[in-house]
C-alpha cells in the first residue's frame, strides 16, 4: 500500500469523526476488512499503546500507521491526525459564534451519536479477537465497570490488567506460556 493511499484512508477516518476513537470503525473497515493490511489485534494494541501515553486518544492513528508501514506509516498517521485540526482556522475566522446555530448543532449531534453506535459495532470484532479465555473476559468486564463508575486514569487500568494477565499466565491459569 502506498503511503499516500494510507494517508487518505486514515484521513477518511479522522475527517468524519468528532472524537478520538470515533474514527475507529471507518479505519477498521478500510484497513482490516478491505485492504487487509492491519488486524483487529493490532487495532486493539494501537488503543492500548495510545492509552498508555498522556497524549490524546486520536493518536492511535499513529500506531495504526506504524503497524501498516513502519515509521513512514506513523508519519502518514500523524499527518492524517493533524490535517482536520486546520479546519478550525476558517471556523474561528469566519463562523465565530454562528456555528452555535441550532440546526448546525442538530446535524453534528446526529453524526456524533451515530459514531457512538458505530464504535460499539467496531468493538465486536475487537472483543472477539481479545477476549479468548475466562481471565480476559473477566478483565474486560471489571475494566468496563471501573471505567463507568470511577474516574481512574486508563493508564492504571491497562497496567493493572497487564499485571493480572501476567500473574494468571505465570500461575498456569491460562495456558499461554
Amino acid at each position, binding site marked *: 500500500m502506498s503511503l499516500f493511499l494510507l494517508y487518505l484512508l486514515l484521513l477518511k477516518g479522522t475527517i468524519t469523526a468528532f472524537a478520538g476513537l470515533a474514527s475507529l470503525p471507518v479505519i477498521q473497515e478500510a484497513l482490516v476488512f478491505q485492504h487487509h493490511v492491519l488486524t483487529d489485534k493490532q487495532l486493539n*494494541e494501537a488503543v492500548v499503546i495510545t492509552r498508555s501515553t498522556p497524549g490524546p486518544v486520536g493518536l492511535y492513528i499513529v500506531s495504526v500507521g506504524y503497524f501498516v508501514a513502519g515509521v513512514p506509516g506513523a508519519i502518514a498517521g500523524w499527518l492524517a491526525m493533524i490535517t482536520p485540526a486546520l479546519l478550525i482556522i476558517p471556523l474561528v475566522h469566519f463562523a465565530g459564534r454562528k*456555528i452555535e446555530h441550532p440546526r448546525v448543532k442538530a446535524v453534528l*449531534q446526529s453524526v456524533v451519536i451515530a459514531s457512538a453506535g458505530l464504535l460499539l459495532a467496531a468493538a465486536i470484532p*475487537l472483543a472477539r479477537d481479545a477476549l479468548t479465555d475466562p481471565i480476559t473476559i473477566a478483565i474486560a468486564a471489571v475494566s468496563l465497570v471501573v471505567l463507568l463508575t470511577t474516574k481512574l486514569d486508563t493508564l492504571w487500568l491497562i497496567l493493572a490488567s497487564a499485571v493480572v494477565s501476567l500473574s494468571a499466565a505465570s500461575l498456569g491459569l491460562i495456558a499461554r506460556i
Partner: protein
Amino acid sequence: MADSTDSNAPPSLGGIGWVFTRYANFTLGGGSATTAVLHHELLEKRHWLNDDRFTLCYALGRLTPGTNLLAVCTGIGWLLHGMSGAVVALLAASIPCTIMVTVLTALFSHWQENAFAQAAIHGAVAAAVAITVKTCWTIAKPHFKGQARLRVLLIGAAAFLLHVVVAIPAIQVLLLAAVIGTFLPLAANS
C-alpha cells in the same frame, strides 16, 4: 489576520511552541484534563487570551473533525499569532506525543516475541476492549439529557444495526446521520 490578544503584546512563537509542547503532550487524563491545564496556563497564569476566546475555541474544537484537542490548540494558536501561531501550536501539540507513540509501538512489536510480555499485553488488550466500549458512552453522554434521550437511543441503535445487520459502510452511516440531522425537529435543550 487574527485579532490581537487581550492585554499584553502577542506572545512569541517560541513561547506558544513551549506552552503547547509542555501542556498538550504531557498531561495524563485525556483531552478534558489537558484542556483544563491549558485553560489555567493560558488564561490565569499568562493572560494570553480571555475566557470568551478560550470558550469559542473549545466549542469550535468540538465541532471540528478529528482530535478535538488538536483543533482547540490550533484555534488558540491562530488567535494568538495568526497562521504561524496556528501551525506552531499544532506541531508543538502533536509531534512530541506522536514520537512517544511511535517509539512505544516499535517497542510493542519487539516485545511480542517475549512470552511474558505477550501475557501482559494480552491482559492490556482486554482492557482496551472495555475502553473502546466505554468511549461509546463518553461520546453519547453529553447528548443524553432531557428530551434528546430518545433521539440518542434511536440514532445510536439505528447506526449500530445498519452497520452490523445491514452491512452499510461506516462512512455512509455517518452521512445518513448528517442528512437525518438536517430534518430532525430541533431539541428543546439544544
